[in-house]
């Protein structure tokens, strides 16, 4: 049976086509203003890659911020459950999933069957979210996907502490004005973001293996800093784009009927 998962986030839309326990195809696009349009475009892309048509898909599960808006979804499932499912399917030893999304980040604790035991969101004041990096990339005039690499080349250890994203940005502006190196600032940003998220995991009491999912997992700077912040090694998904994990989880759930 062929199933699909569609994850409409606040910044990107993702889709995954899934058949006999394997990923057939996937697609990621930047979210459009109209979530309906986003979902239709992204699922179509995924279908095209798989050379399939909508009517070939038996069940589609929707998730993410805009899930309510997905016209073709048969069922809806929370991101928490989807991310847990996707990561656990990929790495069965996973007991904790950390997902840094555009609007919020989550720490999720699961049992050996991939069922959610406990979860927690980032505290109010969103400096622990992917949005944080986007705003900073803006302020620093660097590409979002370049940040990790550049940050790794840091020399001086700087400190960015502010709870508030916009104030943190002001701190960055001050650092820029002190003519600090971009790489050093980026490194500080990655550490501060990672530490905010690390405290989520810690508040659930750590259990290994810890898997990091979501687009930000591609940022090597944040990824490494997260292990330091948690005090245990964090794993990435095995051979899967961490960004599609939510959609993947949805597709798997769809296949479970």
């Amino acid at each position, binding site marked *: 049976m062929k199933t699909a998962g569609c994850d409409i986030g606040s910044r990107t839309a993702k889709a995954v086509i899934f058949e006999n326990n394997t990923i057939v195809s996937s697609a990621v696009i930047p979210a459009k203003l109209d979530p309906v349009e986003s979902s239709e475009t992204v699922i179509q892309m995924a279908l095209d890659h798989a050379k399939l048509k909508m009517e070939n898909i038996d069940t589609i599960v929707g998730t993410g911020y805009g899930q309510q808006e997905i016209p073709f979804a048969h069922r809806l499932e*929370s991101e*928490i*459950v989807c991310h847990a499912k996707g990561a656990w399917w990929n790495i069965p030893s996973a007991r904790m999933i950390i997902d840094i999304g555009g609007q919020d980040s989550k720490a999720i604790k699961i049992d050996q069957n991939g069922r959610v035991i406990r979860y*927690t*969101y980032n505290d*109010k004041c969103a400096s622990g979210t992917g949005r944080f990096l986007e705003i900073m990339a803006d302020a620093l005039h660097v590409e979002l996907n370049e940040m990790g690499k550049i940050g790794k080349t840091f020399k001086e250890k700087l400190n960015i502490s502010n709870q508030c994203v916009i104030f943190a940005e002001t701190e960055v502006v001050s650092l820029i004005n002190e003519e600090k190196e971009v790489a050093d600032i980026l490194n500080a940003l990655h550490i501060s973001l990672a530490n905010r998220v690390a405290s989520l995991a810690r*508040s659930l*009491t750590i259990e290994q293996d810890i898997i990091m999912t979501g687009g930000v997992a591609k940022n090597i700077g944040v990824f490494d800093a997260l292990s330091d912040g948690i005090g245990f090694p964090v794993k990435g998904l095995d051979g899967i784009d961490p960004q599609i994990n939510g959609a993947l989880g949805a597709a798997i759930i769809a296949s479970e009927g």
Partner: protein
Amino acid sequence: MRPELKEYNLDWLFASTFSVAKNLGKSSPDELEYVYKYIPYVRPLLKPVLETGKPALTFLDLFGDYYTDIVNAKENGKKVVMTTFCFDPCIFYAVENLLPVTLEIGTALTSLAWKRGSTDFMDYCTEIGFSETGCSSQRGAMGAYLAGLGAQIDLVALNMGGVCDTNANAYNFAAQYLDVPYYGLDYPSELTSDEAREYHHKDYRNLVRFIEEHTNCQFDIDRLRDVLEEKRKQDDLMNEIEDMQRLVPNPVPGIYHIMIYAARYTYSGKKKFTKMLEEMVEIVRENVKKGLSGLRNGVEKNRSFLVYIDNYSYGVALYEWFEKKGISHLGNILSRTFAETAPYTTGIPGTAYRIDTTNFDTMIDTLADINARMPMTRTIRGSYDAPNMWLDDTLSLAKIYGADSCIYLGTPGCRNTWSNIKLLARDLESFGYPTFIAYGDSFDSRVETWETSEMRFEEFYKIRGLL
């Protein structure tokens, strides 16, 4: 503050709203629907309240009286004392020329019933120098009184020092700003020791002196006794409701908790509050006989206990959502007494209070003991995991109520609980109670929209398999 707001006196608005509203009891459903059209902001509170029948009318009548008295305080030569919830106001009714204004209740009612809730008043407090991060529960109504849009305050008397400094700090600000006399009861971090008891008693006696000095009138022993005897009745009624709440399905309508919360911190020791409780008990008893749930649709799918306070900033959206989902509201720490007659007050000496009306001294000691055992002054003073403190109380209550899950609702202004809710939640989880921490503000809807909160609640109940 917006110019148009400065045109209205808050007490007067309430007095007229509630006095008029109580007549709605006579109207037919169609008439009601028609009226609701014209009061879109009061509707969300009024509708579910009115649906409770008799107690609703007494509730509205009670608040009509309460605010009318405050409006006419000066003409009737009465002084107005600003006080806090978790302080038993019955002492004030034992003095014939004193009327209490309880800020948190005013804030809750404003948040529940007005357009933009009480946010303009909250912001006004910031404008005149009060810390914006301070607790919203006071900032709402306080703004109105500090702006002169309510009764003129003659003195400030409260408890909370040592339990919730943020609260005491707000009242201290009000007193300094208005330049009126201030007395705050202070609490040690322990409850049951003899020293603590002595401290409570001496501290309360100073309060009595303070009141007598600033109202220049003596406490009338008989009046005090009447008030306390009335309070005894009220305790017994509240305890009976609490007791019946243990049944499955829970026969108590969730909205009662807001009604009791609002009434007990303004009208303790007054006959109308007793009347409301009697009417509630009658209905709940009926439900018990018929084996009915307090939920409108009658089906109880989940029993949730609110480990701290309630939410008043979304109208009663949370209650309506509970109703819709079949979640039975087991109350919060504000809707119960710690009288020795309460179903959950354990035999541990000193944790509960006894009302002793033998003579003046025993009565003052009783009042001191009561105030030291108001929901907050008792529960969140010492370490959350110390004996008879937050964890103990929550676990024993959740147990006897057969709660399926626990909910924390509060305000970002609460330094006290936000400094240990993560610890409490973690322990509750380890005892098998799925626990949800809401980040919204119980009085200020700007902190988190109801839509967002609803999404989080949906998620919690769904993911944790509670429905």
